[in-house]
């Protein structure tokens, strides 16, 4: 059965304390609920069987009825609720982003939901803020506070294998604390319906040891190097793309995803297309078929060669 529970976004395949406790809650509740359902159904079916003594005094009837109503209607749900809260409330308490003991500081990562991509910011990175999109790297084995908000509509931030979700609401910042116990890659996806491409709003989450994480941040401090081979593509970019996209050292557009480290990512279009050689060129030519309705205008006025060159340059952008 455990094999059936696995999956990179399975609640029942936890990779963090919060998710693990919820998974246990689920198994406990499932067992108890199954018992209740089976017993109630059995009692009902039994009530349809004949052959019971039917001549009862009305006082007996009242007594039997009251026993059922008080036992099943008051005690059963009452006790179940008490037990459930006794197990559940502490679990909820432990998930809150309360101050950590002995002055420890949780890593702070900002995640901003856009239609339909993720902006991820590391404001406390040593050497200055690091910005990336559609991928989220986090240190393993320590609490991380995610400060989330929405740039346009309401989205929801959710890494199922790590723990519960929280809405990303324009004008508000919500905080959720998650911790990964094991290093690895986890699936994540927007969980609040956010419009035409809600489906293709996936987030690549990777938990790694602290040292690797710091190195990952550090290598993003310097702008990517640009070889002169791609000067034409850079010019195309500056002319057509720069007003929306940022590439460190080249442009500062804020409408679309930051592309400074795009060559280093695993997918395009927030999980729509796997990253491989030539993928960006293909994406630029077909993104409105691949992800209909996405906010990037189509580039039909540029010829395929120009787009492929542009893609080839972008693929070099890697720290």
């Amino acid at each position, binding site marked *: 059965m455990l094999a059936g*529970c696995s999956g990179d976004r399975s609640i029942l395949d936890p990779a963090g304390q919060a998710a693990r406790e919820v998974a246990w809650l*689920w198994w406990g509740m499932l067992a108890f*609920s199954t018992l209740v*359902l089976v017993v109630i*159904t059995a009692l009902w079916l039994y009530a349809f069987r004949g052959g019971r003594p039917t001549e009862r005094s009305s006082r007996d009837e009242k007594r039997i009825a009251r026993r059922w109503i008080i036992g099943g*209607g008051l005690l059963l749900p009452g006790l179940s609720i008490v037990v459930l809260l006794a197990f559940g409330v502490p679990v909820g308490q432990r998930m809150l982003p309360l101050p950590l003991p002995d002055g420890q500081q949780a890593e702070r990562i900002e995640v901003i939901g856009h239609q339909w991509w993720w902006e991820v910011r590391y404001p406390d990175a040593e050497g200055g803020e690091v910005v990336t999109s559609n991928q989220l790297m986090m240190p393993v084995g320590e609490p991380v506070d995610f400060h989330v908000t929405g740039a346009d509509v309401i989205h929801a931030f959710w890494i199922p294998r790590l723990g519960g979700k929280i809405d990303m609401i324009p*004008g508000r910042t919500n905080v959720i604390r998650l911790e990964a116990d094991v290093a690895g890659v986890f699936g994540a996806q927007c969980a609040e*319906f956010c419009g035409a491409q809600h489906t293709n709003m996936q987030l690549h989450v990777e938990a790694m040891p602290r040292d690797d994480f710091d190195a990952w941040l550090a290598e993003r401090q310097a702008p990517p190097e640009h070889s002169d081979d791609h000067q034409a593509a850079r010019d195309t970019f500056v002319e057509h793309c720069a007003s929306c996209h940022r590439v460190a050292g080249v442009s500062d557009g804020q409408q679309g995803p930051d592309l400074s480290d795009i060559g280093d990512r695993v997918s395009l279009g927030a999980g729509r297309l796997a990253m491989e050689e030539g993928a960006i060129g293909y994406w630029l030519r077909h993104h409105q078929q691949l992800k209909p309705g996405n906010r990037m205008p189509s580039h039909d006025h540029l010829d395929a060669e120009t787009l492929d060159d542009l893609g080839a340059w972008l693929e070099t952008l890697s720290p």
Partner: protein
Amino acid sequence: MSDTAQTATPQDPQRLHEDMHEVWGNPRGLKALTIVNHTTLGLRFMVTGMVFFLIGGILAMLVRTQLAFPDQEFMSPEIYNQVFTMHGTVMMFLFAIPMLEGLAIYMIPKMIGARDLVCPRLTSLGYWCYLFGGIILTSSLFLEMAPDSGWFMYTPLSSGEFAPGPGSDFWLLGITFVEISALSAGVELVVSILRTRTRGMSLDKMPLFAWYILAMALMIVVGFPPLILASIMLELERAVGMPFFEVAAGGDPILWQHLFWLFGHPEVYIIFLPAAGIVSTLIPVFAGRPIVGYRWVVVAIIVTGFISFGLWVHHMFTVGIPQLAQAFFSAASMLVAVPTAIQVFVWLATLWLGRPVMKLPMLWVLGFLIIFVCGGLTGVMLALVPFNWQVHDTHFVVAHMHYVLVGGMLFPLMAGLYYWLPLFSGRMPSERLGRWGFWLTFIGFNATFLIMHWTGLLGMPRRIYTYETVMGWDIFNLLSSIGGFVMSAGIAMVLLDIALHFRFGRPAPQNPWNADTLEWTTSMPPSAYNFASLPRVDSRHPLWDDPELPRTIAEGRHDLAVIDHGRRELWGSDPLTGKVREIIHLPGNSWWPLFASLALAVVCVCLLVRLYPLAGFATLVAVGFLLRWSWENGAHPKAAPDAQVQPGDPPLHSRTMDGPGLWAMSIALLANGSFFLSYLFGWFYLWTVSPQWSMPDTSPLSLPLMVLAGVALTAGTLWLEKLVRGLRRQDDRGLAPGLFAVTALGGAQLALLIWVIWQAGLEATETAHDAVLLLGLIYVLLHGALGTILTLLQGLRVGYGYVSAEAPFEPAVVARLWRYNLVVFWVVVFALAAMPMWLGGGA
């Protein structure tokens, strides 16, 4: 035995039927559009509801087809979003609620021994609003511009910026239009149940079904106005740019969520309670014994009704609201399991102590029990906040909610339809086809949704239009889709069975299930007047006490068997004891409800296509029709041809001070009060919580002018009350001049209010603060205008002789509106003008 209640000698039933039919019978041909009879309209509601059910079902099958395989391209994302939005919307607003209302409209008068609902023309208006609103809303599907923001229409996704097309407008306007129907049904069901029960049917002798419907109707009355307010606000934001939900202008999208779920959670119980009422009606009949714990059930109903208004935040646990509030709503959400469990065990105990037989309707009840208990258990799980954070907005929730709604509504509804079919048609359904239909539906349903819990736990979010194989959801989605089609086959078989039985079913005997309630004493199918004479009721089981009732009723041996006066009469009884107080005479068939709702449909369409001047004109026409309709009421000769009653009978209600209209006004004002409280909630919510709320340091409203307007209103109200007190003493001196003077005071209040608005210079499209103020001022302005116009009409009616010491009823009804306006106005002065002045601006 209730022989003592039979007062008259038997008449010839056929002759009596013809005489009754003369007054109550339905016209044919084009004039069938004027019918106001509850039996006919209840059937129309149910048939229309079934059509929308099929539309919603087809949409569900489209969804399941799209999700059957990974990476499917059966539908484009845009269409898929429209389809799932409309599936939820149609099932909730155009099927579940109207269907149950239809059943209640059909059944309630028959169960409480009345000849019709107490506001028959309102029934008709409600039906037309439902039909036209439903057509307008579903037409968007065929125009491919259906709403696509999900059935709960969260802003800002549904706002003008992110949903620029007319889709959201279709939803907001269409649903609000349909809600007129829900509210009118709610109002008249409450008044009918409280005031028109037959002689002797005290509250504790009322069939449980009527208790459930009473609770449902009151919940509609209180629960729907928050959504109507929210819809009006969002439509104003979209149409004219009043930024109620826009963060940058000081609004807050979360306000929409609060108002929506303030409606949306009670809505679940609005759907569940009547269905549970069906179960509580059927189980004693098929167990062959009275229900045990009648009082337990009544208490459970009332407790459910109250708790259901304290649960709405459990739809919003991931919004990030304060922990304490989450804890409160979590516990409250679990507590609602208690009254539900009480009912489940009352039913069990009744079966246990009876001799139950497993007929077709009981099969559906059993299916209901298993599915609903399962849905209830997952509901308790979802109430636990940490678990909710994980599965919220996944397919686990989709599965849970279908277990609750299909299990809690569709299965009991099917049980009820099979149970009452002989009443509708006079024929019995086929046991065999019906069992096939049940098992296919039951198995198909569980195959679809039991598996879907698992899909959700594996992390599949709601409302995505496709998924990839790597996610590991393929097989579960395929099984769910297959289950969905099996369920559809089951539903098709049930509908086929029902359709066929009208032709091939064997004729039903009188009271075929040996039931205990009054609806089985009518002819099958029932006549337009239900009962040729109104029986007296001395217990909860009149038909078990006296199986001869159908015959003695038809022979006119009970009350109100005289018809030569040509009035449609029924008892007006005491709300608690069921003692007879007056004779209520009902208005007959009329074009006005149809005309009024047609005009409202024009308003709706004009707003959709943004022809605002024409919409304004059509609104005036609609109001004109409604006022013209009201003119024929009360002591108007068309409403009560002559005021003579049989010796010994109580007076006509229009000649008393306490008719059903007064009650209907009170219940309508309850709805209105809920609307106003929701508005106040919105004002204080934005003031205290909205992230970028800004408020000027001094209120733009002139407090002195507001107070002056309030003084005019207060003087008018006091004067009107004085006139009503006079009428109560049979004194109508100075009535007409007094009413005109009150009208003038109303006019003065309006003029002052308009001055306030003009002088405030509100920039309602710039800040949420000004938009909310303007909305509140318009609200009191419209209410003042309504009170003034109605008072003016009263003054005119005195001249025509429709209002006098002999017919003193109507001014008391109008006075109630004035009193409401008075309270609301001073609250507005306090909350909108005085409080900001004391507390200062700045949030």
